[in-house]
């Protein structure tokens, strides 16, 4: 699949040392995650003011947090591109499952009982 051409890449890097993230970066990411969690709660406490937007804010923040975890803690930012593609595939096919299930559920014609 899309990751085929990366094979040569890994060959070239045969003697490259894996990337070491500096401690400061981890501290920053950890701090950012804490701040975002507090932000989620602050948004939750005041959610009466923008009820319809609340889920989007909560999940938006969660998405940012997820990105931070994936990029730095899980080291995807410095990983081989093929591994990024592999991980992304999981989310893609999850979206497929979601999309078709939801298409069915919300386009059904409500029917009375025929019994």
């Amino acid at each position, binding site marked *: 699949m899309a990751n085929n051409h990366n094979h040569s890449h890994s060959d070239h890097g045969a003697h490259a040392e894996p990337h070491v*993230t500096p401690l400061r970066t981890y501290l920053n990411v*950890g701090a950012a995650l804490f701040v975002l*969690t507090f932000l989620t*709660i602050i948004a939750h406490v005041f959610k009466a003011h923008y009820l319809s937007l609340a889920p989007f804010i909560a*999940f938006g923040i969660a998405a940012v947090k997820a990105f931070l975890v994936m990029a730095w803690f899980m080291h995807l930012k410095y990983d081989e591109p093929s591994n990024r593609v592999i991980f992304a595939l999981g989310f893609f096919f*999850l979206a497929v499952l979601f999309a078709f299930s939801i298409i069915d559920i919300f386009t059904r014609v409500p029917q009375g009982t025929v019994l």
Partner: protein
Amino acid sequence: MSTSRLINGVEVASHFRDVHHQYSSNKEGIWLFMVTEILMFGGLFVGYIIFHSLYPEMFAEGASYLDWKMGFVNTLVLIFSSFTMALGIYYNQVGQPKRATWALAITVLCGAIFMVIKYFEYTHKFHMGIFPGNLINPEMMAEHGHPMQHSNLGMYFGFYYCMSGLHGIHVLIGMGLITWVMIRNMKGEFSPKYYTPIEGVGIFWHIVDLIWIFLFPLLYLVG
């Protein structure tokens, strides 16, 4: 075939060319496994979103029984444990295995704190008669001053217990795995040249964190 040889002080199985070849192959295997974790949990999320949109009021009633403060604390605990997990790898990379052991120990401890808080959440609900699905007990709930308003409230708690339960099982597995690499680390099996098991376990632990990052708003906040 099971033979291996030492290259630069690292044991390399004979079907791999060199240390990096083995490392990158193992890493890809770990990522493929993580994909299966995402898809497995994802199924639950898909179900949750579908039924949440079908029965928004019932889900709101269910969510009102959850205490976001508990979830909030647990989020902080897990994030912190993710941070210490990353440190566990970092300290091995820079050749300070003692510190790495400490970081891993703190990670396990955080996992334990998470599970203890979960335990209190669960027992509190059991006490109120809130069980998953058909087992939910409306009489007990009424006795505690919270009469059940939607007859299918059990479904919400079906999701709640399935999702947080499956996540909890992953936390326990993760704690076991981290303990395992911690012991290996104390035995001096890892070095800046070889720490793949810690990294693999770390990625698993971050997945556990990642799922919780979404579970928290889903279960506790968006009622």
